[in-house]
């Protein structure tokens, strides 16, 4: 057992967890933040992406015990009353169907746009597709996800 203290979506949280507890389990089971999904067991699908200290990370492959003191943001922490432009863009452009990949897609996409903006780089549709390498969607065929990210990038 390890005692961990971290900030999740701006709130201080703590818990005693077995050492092997994954961040995805800690979020879903201990904190009941079930917006973070688990779609695979080989770190391939990206349904579980959250931000840790401002960086996108696959929470299914991260030990909770290694994150003492970390600042974690999940899909539940993205909107502040109003939908984040990325969330709005997914709605506006029909960027989701079953919604299962969506939290991970949005967390990946927010980081993607912010990184490109910070670096002053142009986020082309080819770049978006390449950046989505770690996120699988079985429903949308990606067409509208790409459109959503382009749309949000123009507004963020």
């Amino acid at each position, binding site marked *: 057992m390890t005692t961990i203290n971290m900030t999740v979506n701006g709130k201080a949280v703590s818990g005693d967890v077995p050492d092997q507890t994954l961040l995805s389990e800690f979020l879903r089971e201990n904190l009941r933040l079930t917006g973070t999904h*688990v779609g695979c067991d080989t770190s391939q699908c990206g349904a579980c992406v959250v931000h840790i200290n401002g960086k996108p990370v696959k929470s299914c492959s991260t030990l909770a015990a290694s994150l003492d003191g970390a600042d974690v943001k999940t899909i*539940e922490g993205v909107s502040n009353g109003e939908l984040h432009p990325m969330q709005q863009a997914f709605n506006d452009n*029909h960027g989701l169907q*079953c919604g*299962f990949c969506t939290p991970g897609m949005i967390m990946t996409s927010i980081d993607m746009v912010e990184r490109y903006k910070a670096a002053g780089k142009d986020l082309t549709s080819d770049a978006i597709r390449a950046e989505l390498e770690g996120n699988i969607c079985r429903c949308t*065929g990606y*067409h509208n996800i790409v459109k959503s990210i382009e749309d949000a990038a123009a507004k963020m």
Partner: protein
Amino acid sequence: MSSGIGVPVKRKEDKRFTTGKGKYTDDIRKDNQAYAAFVRSPHAHAKVKGIDASAALAMDGVIEVLDGHQLTGDGIGNIICGWAVNSKDGSPMNMGAWSALATEKVRYVGDAVAVVIAETQGLARIAAEAVEVDYEALPVIAHVMNAMTDGAVQIHENAPGNQIFDWELGDEAATDAGLAGAAHVTSIDITNNRLSPNPMEPRSAVATYDDAEEHYTLYTTSQNPHVARLVLSAFYNVAAENKLRVIAPDVGGGFGAKIYIYPEEITCLWASMKTNRSVKWTSDRAEAFITDAHGRDHVTTAKMGFDENNKIVGFKVDTVANLGAYMSLFSSSVPTYLYAPLLSGQYDIQNIHCNVRTYYTNTVPVDAYRGAGRPEATYVVERMMETAARELGMDPAELRRINFVQSFPHQTPILMAYDAGDFPKILGMAQSAADVAGFAARKAEAASRGKLRGMGYSTFIEACGLAPSKAAGSLGAGVGLWESAEVRVNPVGSIEILTGSHSHGQGHETTFAQIVADRFDIPIESVNIVHGDTDKVQFGMGTYGSRSAPVGMSAVVKAMDKVEAKVKKIAAHTLEASEDDIVIEGGEVKVAGTDKAMAWHEVGLAAYIAHNLPDGMEPGLKETAFFDPVNFSFPSGAFICEVEVDPDTGETEIIKFTAADDFGTIINPLIVDGQVHGGVTQGIGQAMLEQVIYDDDGQLLTGSYMDYTMPRAADVPSYDVSHMEDQPSPNNPLGVKGCGEAGAIGSPPAVINAITDAIGNNDLAMPATPQAVWRAIQAAKPVAAE
């Protein structure tokens, strides 16, 4: 109106999904919840000689270990296939016994023999490892063509030679005669590769038993919760229907894999009673690969004959289909009634014969996956048309055009009566969108860079809107395939629609609300959709086979007809006018041509207050309806794929994919386009990336996303999608045809036709990986003189 039929309304359900508030089965946690983990066979075929659970039971936190003898001892019935298909000699199909937990024998890697119930998921899994099973390995049939060989091991005692049935459709003698008299005959041998559906949400179940009420509740990842309840009650004897509630909450994609009632759901329900605990099981991806029903897996030879005018005079198809280790719920119908009747494609063919033999193998059961039988048929027909055109030296579009069905209704010789369509028009739409005229120049430009360009067509038809119950019954279906709906107008005028259709990504909460908003001219915000709960919705057959719009919405329309009639009676009575003069518009119910009107909500209120209703009228404003279609609906389309191949590496890029289709009336173009994008991507996945592979021992080699190649964003292009709406289906009130599967049905042949065009070799199997394409390029090279 702003949110009626045909408007690209943004989805109402998106807010909860984009903010992480969706409620999927694995998000549910019950008080007193325990966890199930299954003990699964590592052998593809073996006798089970004994199970020793003592070590597992001795572990702290393990509540119970249950096996198949206890399960069958409690009277839990075998899992069944619900569609009876007879062999051509009249004998019934050879359905082998399938217990949710195997007792005497295991027949595929992953077959469950026991279940551990423990306090945590981690503990349950560790304890499952500690259950000792004594197996005696048997010879294995991993590939369907080995199932029929002399001396092959028997997988089920009642299936000699491992054959399930030997079935046919069409007139063989007439077809043979047509082929014998043909000026040209094209032959092809093709394999339809085996796939794993892979909805991103893994299957999950949470079962609760209430011992005071002797009542069960099951939350599960189902496309059809009522069917699940029916089958769990009537066949598996888990509980009487009135003692079982099945809820399918938000479901993260289905694609067919979540139609069936699997061993895990049965076992969790039974285990919840045995342990008096809520029992939860959630599959991980590795478990999904070895337990979710797979799709396709056909081996086919086909011959098509043409007369001197290049008109088709005969089409003969012989298919071997692999159904895996057991017959899953709809498995028998997929390679028969959902396959062979589509072999006429968009063409006027008088003579067609199809023979289908199905076999058991030591692999995961095979059942419907997006398209179910129709992609397999389309692949045969459309690969055939393109190959024949090349042999005949014709433009492949022209060969199709001269063979198109031109007038409707059109009765094929293989059961189907096409109701409406305009195949030349859709083909023309696709050709101009794809700029076919400019292809030669693009090809030349690519050649100047050392690249090979190719273009491939697929003009497809499919049958949706499963299905006229009587016709389905006469073909062996165990159930009727109607749909039910209830329209509940509240006293304040807001409306709940209860439907037996189920949304697992299709957007019903928006599209079903649109047809109600359109009909009663009220804001879409005042319409709510209720689905997925057997306690709330009376009954329903669920969502698969692109049936929600043609069948599910039609039931809603029928119920709205009844509501409208009552609304008009109440308004006529209140406003002292004739019913015939009452119109519903702009949020009002009014007497046409006058200023006499009631607000919409006033009619609802009047119905419930009931102080002033016409004599004899029942209070309330709620109507139900069942809709049973009179025919299938027939969506069709023309897809054109343009590819560029690097001849040095075999790497293939899809330059442009054009999809023109006829789905009849479109309720929400945003959502329909999305269905096409997703379907085409799954079809491209089948054509270029995906393949379930077993080794000769029946071990799955493609059991994770490291080995099974799912299409990712960079593997596919953006799509050019357009729709023709001027041929609505005459067989349902909205004129809709269904759009969920067309993309997956039509796209694989378009892709392969394009690649084979580019490389000049018709002999290319799916998936066309760079290695496969490179090999086909080498094989087509003239042997150099040394």
